[in-house]
C-alpha cells in the first residue's frame, strides 16, 4: 500500500467507527440534555440490543437467507432492537430514575450505575441461552460471533483501498437516523416539548407539558438510537459480548463531551473526531498510546472550549 492509500483507508475506517460512536453518543446526549444524567446504563442497554439482534438472527435462521432477504433481516433486527432498547431504557427511567427526580444528581447517577450492573449481568445470562448462535450457551461469558449478514468484501475490487458493504451499511443506517433526529427535535411538537423540559422542567410543567412523559419518550428515543447502533455495531464488528457496553459507552460519552454535551450535531462531530483520531493514532503512533492520545485531545479541547466543540456556554441565571 502506498502512503496515501494508507491514509485514505484510515480515513474510511475512522469515519465508519466514528459514525457508530456518534450514534451511541446521541443517546447519551439526549438523555443528558433533558435531565442532566450521565446514563451509565446506556452502554449496557446498547449491549443487550446486540444480544436481541443475535437472538432474532438465530430464531429466524437468517444466516440461511439469500442476500436480498438478508437486507430484510437487517431491517427486522434494526426495528426489533430499537424497540427493545427504547422500551428497556424507558423502563429503567420509569423504575429506577423517575422517583429520584428531586433527589440529588449523584443519587440518580448511582441508580444508573446500579442499572448498568444489572444489565451487564442480564447480558451474561443471555449469553448462556442454549441456542446455536450463542454457541449453545456453554460459555456464557465468552464473546459471541455475529454472522456476517453484510459481507466484508471489497467493493472496489482489487484496489488496495477497501470499502466494504458493511462500511456502506453504517452510513446508510446512521445518516438518515441523525437527520431524522434533528428533524424530530427541531421541527415537531414533541421536540419542542423536549427542548422546553430541557431548559426548565418546572416552567414546562406549568405550561401544561407532561414532563414525565416527555422525559420517558426521550429515554425511549435515546434507547432506540442505542438499539440501532447495536445492530450497526454488530454487523460491522461481527462480535458481541456482555462487557462490550463499557468501552462503547465510554467512547460515546467522550464523544458527546467533545462535541458539547446536549448538542446533537456536537455528538456526531465528537464521534467522528474520536473515530478519526483513533485511526490516525493507531496508524502513525502506537496502538497502545491511542487511549492516551484521545484523552489528551479531550483535555486540550476542553481547555480551549470548556463547553465542547459545538456546545453553548450556558449562562447561569443570576
Amino acid at each position, binding site marked *: *500500500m502506498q502512503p496515501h492509500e*494508507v491514509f485514505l*483507508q*484510515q480515513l474510511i*475506517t*475512522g469515519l*465508519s*467507527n466514528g459514525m*457508530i460512536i456518534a450514534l451511541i453518543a446521541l443517546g447519551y446526549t439526549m438523555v443528558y440534555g433533558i435531565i442532566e444524567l450521565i446514563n451509565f446504563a446506556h452502554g449496557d442497554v446498547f449491549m443487550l440490543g446486540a444480544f436481541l439482534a443475535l437472538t432474532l438472527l438465530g430464531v429466524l435462521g437468517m444466516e440461511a437467507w439469500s442476500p436480498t432477504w438478508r437486507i430484510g433481516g437487517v431491517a427486522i433486527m434494526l426495528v426489533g432492537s430499537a424497540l427493545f432498547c427504547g422500551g428497556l431504557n424507558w423502563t429503567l427511567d420509569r423504575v429506577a430514575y423517575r422517583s429520584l427526580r428531586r433527589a440529588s444528581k449523584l443519587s440518580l447517577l448511582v441508580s444508573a450505575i446500579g442499572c448498568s*450492573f444489572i444489565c451487564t449481568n442480564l447480558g*451474561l445470562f443471555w449469553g448462556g441461552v442454549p441456542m446455536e448462535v450463542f*454457541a449453545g450457551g*456453554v*460459555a*456464557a*461469558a*465468552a*464473546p*459471541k*460471533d455475529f*454472522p*456476517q449478514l453484510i459481507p*466484508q468484501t*471489497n467493493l472496489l475490487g482489487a484496489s488496495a483501498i*477497501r470499502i*466494504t458493504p*458493511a462500511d456502506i451499511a453504517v452510513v446508510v443506517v446512521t445518516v438518515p437516523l441523525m437527520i431524522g433526529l434533528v428533524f424530530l427535535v427541531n421541527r415537531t411538537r414533541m421536540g419542542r416539548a423536549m427542548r422546553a423540559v430541557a431548559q426548565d422542567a418546572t416552567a414546562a410543567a406549568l405550561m401544561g407539558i407532561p414532563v414525565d412523559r416527555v422525559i420517558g419518550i426521550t429515554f425511549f428515543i435515546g434507547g432506540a438510537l442505542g438499539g440501532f447502533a447495536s445492530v450497526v*455495531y454488530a454487523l*460491522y*464488528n*461481527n*462480535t458481541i*459480548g456482555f*462487557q*462490550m457496553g*463499557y*468501552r*462503547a459507552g465510554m*467512547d460515546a460519552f467522550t464523544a458527546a463531551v467533545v462535541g458539547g454535551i446536549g448538542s446533537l450535531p456536537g455528538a456526531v462531530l465528537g464521534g467522528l473526531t474520536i473515530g478519526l483520531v*483513533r*485511526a*490516525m493514532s*493507531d*496508524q502513525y503512533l*502506537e*496502538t*497502545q498510546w*491511542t*487511549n492516551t492520545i484521545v484523552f489528551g485531545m479531550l483535555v486540550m479541547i476542553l481547555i480551549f472550549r470548556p463547553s465542547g466543540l459545538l456546545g453553548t456556554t450556558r449562562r447561569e441565571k443570576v
Partner: protein
Amino acid sequence: MKNTLPTITFILIASLGLFASFAATAAQQSESSKGTLHLVSSLPRTGSANAQTSTMVNGIKLAIEEVNGQIDGWTITYQDLDDASPQRGNWDPTVEAQNANAAAKDRSCVGYIGTFNSGAAKVAMPILNRAGLVMVSPANTYPGLTKPGTGEANEPMVYRPTGKINYFRVVPADDLQGTQAANWAKSLGAKKVFILNDRELYGKGIADVFQKRAKEIGMEVVGFEGTDAKASNYRPLVTKIKAVGPDLVYFGGTTQSNAGQIAKDLRAGGYEGLYMVPDGCFEQAFIEAAGDSNLNDKTYITFGGLPAEKLTGRGATFREAYHKRYGSDPEAYAAYGYEAARVLLDAIARAKTKDRAGVLAAVAETVDFDGVLGKWSFDANGDTSSKVMSGQTVKNGKFEFVKVLGD
C-alpha cells in the same frame, strides 16, 4: 442523632448476622472414618475469565469424582473459591490474598489449586509458602514464578520466603511456548512477522519471547504493538499491518483479550497471511468468537501438551469420562484443571503422612506421572518436565492437530 444510632446498630448487626449465617453453612463438613482432607481452588469465577475457569473446575471435580472423594479412607472435600470480586470483574488481589490466608489457616486444607492469573500467584505464593501448603497451578505461565534468571532479579526467591519450594505448575512456561511458536512460524515459511500482544502478563510475556526468538532465527519483525483488549475493533491496526505486508501475524493473548476479534478484523481488512496464537486461545470459544470462516486453514495455535483427541492411555480415558459427565469434549483448560487435581490426589495417595508436609513432599516427588498431558515429572523448580508442545490449526470450525513441536 436520635435516629442515627439505631441505623448504625441495625446495619452492624444485620451485616454480622448475614455473614455469620453464611459462614455457618459453609462450615458444614462431612464426617468420615479417618478424617477430611480439603482441597481448594482459587480461580476467577466472576467476570470475563469465567468461561475458562468453568471448564477448569469441571476438570477438577471430575478428578475428585473419579476417586469417589475417598483416598485410603480419607474423605476428600473440595471448595471452588472465587478470586475475582464483582466490582472488579477480574481477579482481585485482595480476594486472592483472602483466599490464600483462609486456606493457610484451615488445618484440614492440604492442597491449593490455582491460580489462573500469574499476577494472582505472586500474591498467593508467599502466603502459602509460609503455611507450607502445596500449590499447583493449572494455568500460570509467567516464567519468573519458578525459573531463576527469567524474571526480575529477586524472582523466584521472593515467592519462597521459607526457602522451600511449594509451588508447582502443570503447564509449560511462556519461554518454552514462545520459542516453539517462533520456530514453527519459521517452518511454516514466514519471513516477515508482525507481533501483537494484549499488554497482559501472559500475552506480553509470550510475545516478547516470540519476538526474541524470531529475530534469532532470522525472521524479520516488522511490527510489535500492544493492543487494547477492550477495543471494539482493530481495523485501523489491520490497515497498519497490511501496509507493512507481513506473512504472519502473531498475537500474544487470549480469547478474553480479543484474539477472535483480531482474527475477524484481519480478514475483514483484507489481510491474507497467516495468524498464530498461543494456548490462551486453544478453546472452542475462540473459534466461536472469531467465526470459523475467518480462521479456517490459516490459523495456528500452539499448546503445551497434546490435544484431547490425540491423547492415548490416560488421556483418552479422560476424554471419554469428561464427555460422558459434561456432554462436551474437554478443552485445554479442562485438561489443565484435571491434571492439577490429579497430581494432588496422586500425591495424597502416596503421602506417608496425610497432612500438608506429607502431601507437599509427595507432590515434589512426582516422577513419571502418567497424566493427560503426557508422562512427566516436576523438576527442581517445580516446573513440569513435559516439553511436549503441539501445533494446531483450524479446519471446518474445529481444531485440528498438525504436529508435535520440538527442536
